[in-house]
């Protein structure tokens, strides 16, 4: 298979401009006759559906939630990057591009990433115009903060709820299009299959989750914006419903899954506390702006803390190991996520972890509180040496910045983070891998597009903080509305697609059989128990560190688990009713196959890069050892139940020199 990335010719900085100048357009009278299906209403899906509606396409949008506003983009906390250089600190489109390529450990496409950096500034303007209440300075201008892996302040934010505010903005734009009839919204509908007609994606089979009824929806093309697959690990920061099903169904129809092993483990999550847990909670990376990460230097102190005999406050300054500041003096606590996560794992593996499980490190705000407090006292003309006053003022500043996060931490852990340092540990958070797409965001299947976390294109082997929101909105507001024209301009003579052709009827029948086989299963084990076991295997062998032996073993285990699942799963209720357990069963079934592909990909990639850390490929001081000679490619997998086939797209770096990533 020839993987043509369709990157426009010309200099890096001119590609997108030239592309827009020369791309084929669809006239307004033709847009009215073209139907587009959008699956998912998160940042990417909602912004794409709204914008294509504004342009005049007939859009049908689908979400499995009860409202488009509930998509998991809503939970993003920290912020959104943009190369505005409002802070005059040397930021530029090139620097955002460079940071993203470097942060992704040189495993993403130059042209796509540069386009992302170019449109980043427009996103902020668009969101402000929609009424997104970003943080402001006293002068009324937009405020910024810094995030991991970069040395400028380019992150725009709305308290600790940036994702919520951006999604509400996109949801409102979408609602406006729904009110004009330009977008038809299907809530509580899940995509069950992709329908192909003459080699093109022409529709979907959707299940109405309230009635169980299957529906055939036809269109000229299909856009997937269905998020990531982090829930394959069972425990992750993803919402309970986040799943791989729509993307996986596309893979089963011939779409390629790219770099599935690139998963992001976020360093600052609330640690696991018990077996009953079904998800983990993230503490925004923005906290690392002001929080210092440490563990006790002495093992006996760590043990005493684990046993509850000592607290963090009993450990004198000299006995604390601020290991990120020690190992990475240039970036300190703001190293990228993959580096911070692995360092936490090393600290805990060495026996210095601090929660009862031994799997946690401290994130301490004491010095930030003192620093801010002193500054506040100074500017208000108060006594800077009054410790109690300084602490009080400092806590107020910290509360203003991170109040809702501190509150959330306290609700979950029962501990006051203003007084005691937070306990944190890495958890699965984001998946850089996803459907393979070209420069047009079209998959290898004609007429099938993938946006946002659902595609693989921009983050390489590791995503920088505050870049997921940027990519989702870039794809939806500013990329797909243009690039979809390359396909649709050739479809202006295609009449409305009928939904009762043999292709649709067969897809519907196949879906029905698939659902029936699970709905009628009379096994003895719950869906949840299978999902939990799958997650354990994935986390153990395909999580923060991976090895050939472990991965080989894991593949066999996942296969066996899949067989057992079909033999012994129990799904209560019927197929023709509202049945959340059945929905879960269908999703877990797809996770089983996708998980196997992740393992295969991790096995193939015999190097350590970004979030993918292979124990066999390490430098002397324990850092990841990348292999640019043999692995500077995108792995794009074609599914086959026996032997998935690997296709490679070589990555070409014309503008950036491949260097060992150093944050020291």
């Amino acid at each position, binding site marked *: 298979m020839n993987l043509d990335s369709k990157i426009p010719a010309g200099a890096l900085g001119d590609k997108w401009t030239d592309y827009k100048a020369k791309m084929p357009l669809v006239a307004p009278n033709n847009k009215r006759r073209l139907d587009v299906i959008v699956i998912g209403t998160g940042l990417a899906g909602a912004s794409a559906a709204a*914008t294509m509606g504004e342009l005049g396409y007939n859009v049908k949008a689908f979400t499995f939630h009860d*409202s488009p506003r509930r998509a*998991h983009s*809503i939970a993003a906390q920290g912020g959104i990057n943009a190369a505005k250089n409002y802070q005059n600190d040397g930021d530029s489109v090139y620097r955002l591009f460079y940071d993203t390529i470097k942060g992704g450990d040189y495993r993403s496409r130059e042209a796509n990433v540069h386009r992302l950096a170019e449109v980043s500034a427009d996103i902020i303007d668009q969101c402000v115009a*929609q009424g997104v209440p970003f943080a402001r300075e006293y002068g009324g201008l*937009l405020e910024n903060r810094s995030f991991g892996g970069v040395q400028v302040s380019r992150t725009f934010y709305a308290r600790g709820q940036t994702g919520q505010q951006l999604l509400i903005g996109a949801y409102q*734009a979408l609602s406006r299009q729904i009110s004009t009839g330009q977008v038809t919204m299907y809530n509580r509908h899940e995509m069950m299959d992709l329908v192909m007609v003459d080699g093109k994606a022409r529709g979907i089979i959707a299940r109405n989750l309230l009635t169980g009824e299957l529906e055939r929806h036809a269109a000229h093309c299909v856009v997937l914006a269905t998020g990531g697959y982090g829930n394959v690990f069972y425990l992750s920061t993803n919402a309970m419903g986040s799943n791989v099903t729509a993307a996986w169904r596309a893979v089963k129809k011939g779409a390629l899954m790219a770099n599935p092993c690139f998963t992001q483990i976020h360093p600052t999550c609330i640690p696991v506390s018990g077996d009953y847990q079904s998800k983990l909670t993230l503490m925004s990376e923005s906290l690392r702006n002001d929080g210092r990460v440490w563990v006790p230097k002495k093992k006996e102190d760590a043990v005493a803390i684990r046993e509850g005999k000592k607290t963090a406050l009993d450990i004198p300054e000299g006995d604390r190991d601020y290991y990120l500041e020690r190992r990475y003096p240039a970036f300190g606590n703001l190293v990228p996520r993959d580096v911070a996560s692995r360092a936490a794992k090393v600290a805990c593996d060495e026996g210095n972890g601090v929660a009862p499980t031994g799997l946690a490190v401290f994130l301490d705000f004491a010095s930030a509180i003192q620093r801010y407090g002193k500054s506040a006292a100074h500017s208000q003309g108060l006594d800077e040496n009054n410790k109690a006053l300084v602490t009080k003022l400092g806590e107020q500043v910290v509360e203003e910045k991170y109040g809702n996060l501190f509150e959330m931490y306290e*609700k*979950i852990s029962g501990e006051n983070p203003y007084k005691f340092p937070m306990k944190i540990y890495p958890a699965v958070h984001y998946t850089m891998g996803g459907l393979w797409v070209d420069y047009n965001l079209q998959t290898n299947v004609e007429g099938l597009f993938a946006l946002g976390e659902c595609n693989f294109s921009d983050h390489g082997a590791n995503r920088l903080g505050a870049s997921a929101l940027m990519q989702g909105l870039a794809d939806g507001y500013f990329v797909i509305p243009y690039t979809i024209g390359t396909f649709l301009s050739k479809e202006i003579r295609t009449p409305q697609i009928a939904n009762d052709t043999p292709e649709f009827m067969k897809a519907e029948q196949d879906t029905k059989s698939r659902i029936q086989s699970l709905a009628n299963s009379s096994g003895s084990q719950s869906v949840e128990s299978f999902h939990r076991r799958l997650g354990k295997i994935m986390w153990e062998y395909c999580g923060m560190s991976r090895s050939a032996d472990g991965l080989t073993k894991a593949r066999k285990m996942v296969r066996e688990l899949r067989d057992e699942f079909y033999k012994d799963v129990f799904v209560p209720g019927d197929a023709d009713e509202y049945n959340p*357990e059945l929905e879960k069963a269908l999703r877990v079934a797809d996770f089983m196959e996708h998980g196997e592909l992740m393992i295969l990909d991790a096995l193939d990639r015999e190097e350590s890069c970004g979030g993918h850390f292979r124990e066999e490929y390490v430098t002397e001081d324990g850092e990841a050892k990348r292999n640019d000679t043999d692995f500077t490619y995108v792995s794009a997998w074609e599914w086959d139940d026996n032997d998935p086939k690997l296709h490679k797209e070589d990555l070409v770096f014309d503008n950036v020199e491949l260097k060992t990533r150093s944050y020291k």
Partner: protein
Amino acid sequence: MKLTLKVWRQKNSKAKGELESYQVEASEHMSFLEMMDVLNEQLIAEKKSPIAFDHDCREGICGSCSMTINGSPHGPQTGTTTCQLHMRKFKDGDTIVVEPWRSKVFPVIKDLTVDRSAFDRIIQSGGYISVNTGQAPDGNAIPIEKDLASNAFDAAACIGCGACVAACPNGSAMLFTAAKVSHLNQLPQGEVEKTRRTASMVAQMDKEGFGMCSNVGACEAECPKEISIEHIARMNRDYVASIFGGRKS
């Protein structure tokens, strides 16, 4: 801790529902929904139908979860969604009554799951700023006073869960509608459409069948995001202005 749960079970929107009792063993570190998960696992093991409830992010932000716990929407802890409520707020031996949102505009779909699509229709009636993608001026072109932006944010923090409606003795959706009206009307970008937005959203709210506001204040008390009824006052002011003409209020 050992608990007795009395949970509203209703097979579908047409069926008659009733409270059923269950015994469940929980740990004080569990969230309320994790305790419900444990109960559901128990039911599935007994080959019984698990309790249906809406939930997703479990971080208090998606607004999916919607349980009336011992008569209070989202339970006893102020400023907290059901998913963020932890069992340490309860005692060993407690009996806990769990019901769906109470509102005729939010019909029960099954057990604790209700239909809140009326909220979407209120937003569709005017809860947006009419700006197409690509039309925006530079983000710093219009300075917005820090306190104003912060005030607009307080209103925009609404998660659309519906606790305000469930808490109100009149079943009013004033706090939900006002939060959106106040968020947008305060900002210079949203001020242009203020009159039309306010009139249209209030009309839709009435059309859906939500009750009138009589200043009880239960909505504010039960709102998991602690949204103030000051926003209702602002909407009322803008609403009056929309009736008596004049774009200025």
